[in-house]
């Protein structure tokens, strides 16, 4: 049996979208108490199966609305699949967004502790890492400045510096590189190079260059809910031809 980090088996997910505005109010139920609520069903994923091996860099591509984000949220345990199952082997940390929980009113240092604990670090670990985090982010002089006064680039640098301190076996990355300037992206890619083979990475991106360069395999989610898995070159080539 092959050692896998993430195993996705026959996963389907359908969302119910209420047709007449917001369903979460009593108004709807008062006005039409006997009418069955009307929903439009939106199937985001249909019978999707794949395994990610330990240490593999696995990318997901596809146009908007093909279920990429839904897949990441299911793998991260935020959504539950309607059918099928996801098995995770190791500690998984999702980065669907950098700096989750950042509060603009708090200082950079306070946000490091807040964001860090949300990502799963303990206070003791953060005490140990705090200098390295600010050093890596090149924000030493800004530790006591509220992050609302940060440029978006500074905030992303800080968030990324915290994120890489989180101990994990599996990373789930959703377009985190889309933000930040060239220099920051270079830093991210250096980090990727270092991580390659050590951590399993599930990566969603529209940046086909980076997908091609770093991935071991690529999953292409198509609009008709079918999918293909293959080598980056082959899949990215064929995907590029669709537009």
């Amino acid at each position, binding site marked *: 049996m092959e050692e896998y980090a993430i195993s996705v088996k026959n996963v389907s997910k359908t969302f119910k979208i209420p047709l007449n505005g917001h369903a*979460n109010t009593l108004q709807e139920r008062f006005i039409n108490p006997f009418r069955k609520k009307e929903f439009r069903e939106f199937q985001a994923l249909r019978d999707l199966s794949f395994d990610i091996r330990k240490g593999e860099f696995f990318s997901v591509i596809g146009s908007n609305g093909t279920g990429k984000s839904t897949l990441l949220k299911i793998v991260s345990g*935020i959504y539950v699949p309607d059918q099928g199952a996801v098995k995770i082997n190791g500690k998984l940390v999702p980065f669907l967004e950098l700096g*989750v*929980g950042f*509060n603009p009113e*708090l200082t950079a240092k306070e946000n490091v502790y807040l964001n860090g604990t*949300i990502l*799963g670090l*303990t206070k003791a670990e953060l005490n140990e890492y705090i200098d390295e985090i600010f050093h890596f982010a090149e924000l030493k002089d800004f530790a006591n400045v509220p992050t609302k006064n940060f440029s978006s680039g500074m905030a992303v640098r800080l968030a990324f510096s915290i994120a890489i301190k989180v101990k994990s076996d599996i990373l789930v990355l959703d377009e985190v590189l889309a933000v930040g300037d060239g220099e920051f992206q270079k830093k991210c890619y250096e980090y990727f190079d270092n991580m390659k083979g050590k951590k399993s990475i599930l990566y969603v991106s529209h940046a086909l260059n980076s997908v091609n360069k770093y991935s071991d395999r690529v999953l292409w989610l198509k609009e008709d809910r079918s999918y293909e898995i293959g080598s980056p070159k082959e899949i990215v080539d064929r995907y590029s031809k669709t537009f």
Partner: protein
Amino acid sequence: MRGNELDLYKQFVKTIFKMRYRGSILGFLWVLLKPFFMFLILFSIFSHFAGAAGNLTPKQYAVYLLSGLIIYTFFNEGITWGMNSIMERAGLMIKINFKREIVVISALTMALINFGINFLIISIIALILGISITTLGVGYIFLICFTMFLAMYGISFFTSIWLVYVRDLTHISELVLQLMFYASAVFFPITAIPQRYQFIVKYNPIAIYIQAVRDALILGEVNHWKFVLLSLIISVILVIVGRLYFNKKIVKIAEHF
């Protein structure tokens, strides 16, 4: 198991606390100053109605009034913040998985901290006014508050989930809490209510808690202890059942934000 849940809980409470006073010149001093001046205002207005509360001296009436107010405030904040806790963190919950229960207990803890501060100030006021506070009385008040805390924690397990599905709960709870305020006889004695409506106050748990706290603080007496013990047992059951319900429902909640 993440092993940092206690740290996360502390971070959440700290953040809520910090956010409240951020940017003000006096900062944390407001934690003490605000309730103190609130009480001063209320005291100067309502001390003129002391006669209405039966056989209390004006000084006792001041403590009578304020202790009722802080118990109701504790109830109001606990119910409101507990109910809003999940919705308020929706943005976070659709991005990362952590133990969701922590946001509920953090909100309740905030209400408890507020109560603790208010109680401290009231105790100081009571001492200044020459009321002798007994250890037994204070101990009993702590037991009552612990019971209320558990009850509200249990209730929040349900309401925090329901609010996601039925947003109208915000408005409904405001009305219910307003109703509870008048049904708890905070500002007026029960004897001021027409006989045939007095049962509302008599059977209202909050009104009973308030009465018990007043007796414990002013007279050092332990009254209504049977009710308090019974409600403690019910609260524990509520927490256990609520937690089961919460854990069952929470896995699907992210889709409904």
